């Protein structure tokens, strides 16, 4: 029978002896490439328990055990490097971007607070915060540098804050500059995500928007995984705490996870949110599948979603009425 090995194709006889061998060239990259091809090919597998090393020695591919292992080491390493370098797909890059964005948001929040506290010792009446405060400090530094035409000038006149020493001014301005540059970076990343989502997952982009779409891909781990999830999973993705509580105890199931941030859900009245979440998740699931398997944009998805939402809203204009109790009814035992 014919068998494939990492060092060649062998013809072995009934008792396992080697009849013929077609040895591969002893070039590491070549051997690695062939190894990759072989893993896909499920035919001509060596029989269970086949001793590859002994076979390699027998057909003179190598002249010693040491040479066998040394070569095998280099080939496996090279194979794996090839596989890893091909593994960074476009959706992985979006995932890194959206996670970096979340990190930047956290960081700018803490640093802005710190800036506000720090500068508040000098000019608490500024009324500025976040990026506007950072820009202000970068531009002016001490409040004394304001001109009378500046709208904030009046606040500086009788400020209760202390004088800003020169050394502190330099430090604060530098700190504020760093914060500004982070806000710039945040905008850059947001723009990158918006652009990339259009090409990586156009349907998801259309229905969920670039940010929510990117976050869905990030939580799932890849566009491929997102495409395999049933719509019920997409509905609750991001609500794992509530989901497991529901699975383990008698807590109610979560109606929505991260998709809550979609305007269709968070602007809807509370009594239709569950139904809308289900409908939205269904279309998101379809969108992800189209994006992964064909990448062609399908505008009809949005139309169908809007129609469905209109239907739901129309048939549920009022919140459900609490049933009137006629005497004490025994509580129905819930089957867990």
């Amino acid at each position: 029978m014919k068998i494939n090995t990492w060092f060649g194709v062998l013809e072995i006889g009934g008792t396992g002896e080697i009849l013929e061998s077609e040895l591969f060239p002893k070039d590491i990259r070549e051997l690695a490439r062939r190894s990759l091809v072989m893993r896909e090919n499920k035919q001509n597998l060596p029989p269970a328990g086949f001793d590859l090393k002994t076979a390699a020695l027998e057909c003179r591919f190598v002249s010693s055990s040491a040479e066998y292992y040394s070569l095998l080491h280099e080939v496996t390493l090279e194979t794996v490097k090839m596989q890893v370098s091909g593994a960074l797909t476009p959706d992985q890059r979006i995932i890194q971007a959206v996670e970096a964005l979340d990190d930047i948001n956290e960081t700018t929040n803490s640093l802005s607070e710190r800036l506000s506290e720090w500068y508040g010792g000098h000019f608490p009446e500024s009324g500025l915060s976040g990026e506007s405060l950072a820009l202000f400090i970068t531009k002016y530094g001490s409040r004394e540098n304001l001109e009378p035409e500046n709208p904030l000038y009046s606040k500086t006149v009788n400020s209760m804050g202390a004088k800003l020493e020169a050394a502190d001014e330099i430090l604060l301005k530098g700190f504020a500059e760093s914060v500004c540059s982070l806000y710039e970076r945040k905008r850059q990343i947001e723009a990158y995500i918006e652009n990339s989502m259009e090409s990586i997952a156009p349907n998801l982009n259309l229905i969920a928007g670039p940010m929510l779409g990117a976050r869905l891909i990030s939580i799932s781990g890849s566009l491929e995984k997102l495409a395999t999830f049933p719509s019920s999973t997409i509905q609750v993705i991001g609500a794992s705490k509530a989901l497991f509580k529901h699975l383990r105890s008698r807590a109610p199931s979560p109606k929505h996870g991260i998709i809550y941030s979609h305007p269709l859900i968070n602007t809807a009245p509370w009594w239709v949110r569950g139904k809308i979440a289900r409908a939205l998740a269904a279309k998101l699931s379809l969108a992800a599948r189209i994006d992964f398997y064909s990448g062609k944009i399908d505008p009809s998805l949005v139309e169908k979603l809007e129609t469905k939402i209109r239907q739901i809203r129309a048939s549920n204009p009022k919140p459900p009425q609490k049933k009137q109790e006629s005497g004490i009814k025994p509580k129905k035992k819930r089957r867990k």
Partner: protein
Amino acid sequence: MSEVRKISDGIFEVIKDKKQLATRNLDPGKVVYGEKLIPVEGVEYRTWDPRRSKLGAMILKKFNISLKEDSKVLYLGAASGTTVSHVSDIVSEGAVYAVEFAPRSMRDLIGLASRRKNIYPILADAGKPDSYAHIVEPVDLIFQDVAQPNQAEIASRNASRFLKGDGYLLLSIKARSIDTVANPKEVFKEEVKKLEQAFEPKFEILNAKDLMPYHEDHLGVLAKLR
């Protein structure tokens, strides 16, 4: 002054301030994951944290893993290589075929394998041993630490291809990977039964113990082919 006591081939107990499990560093001077390096009489040892490594925990729970310096090991679920590095220390004249599925973990494993000539990295799905049948030779030990629901089946498939007749299977079963909400004891009973009966080849269980206090809801299993 530090003392060293041998537990079995390649596995030691180093006493410096306190007793610690350790292996001889195959790559002296290099730290792999934040473990301590302890020199004793010209030999450098690496401490082995049982709370980070299921295999380390199994050794402390008295699993007889019978590895020799020249043993061949198939390691399924190599991850970033923290435990693999200790196995590599132990089988200094042998081989560790390290199978891992995630490219991100493989990145770290590549760094490790570049420095240690007895580690052969394989990026593949442990559930499909046919995909690395053209690379791996028959082994003395299969160590499996994959968080998959079909662990028993994976063990059988790999053993049927690669485990020598007198070889051993060492498994770490994580109850939550099999069923997130079931009672761990039930899950363990099920999995052990599957190993003994459900697939070909069948296994004979030599030891099955939980890994407390080092790991919660984990069962360590030592088995051999029936």
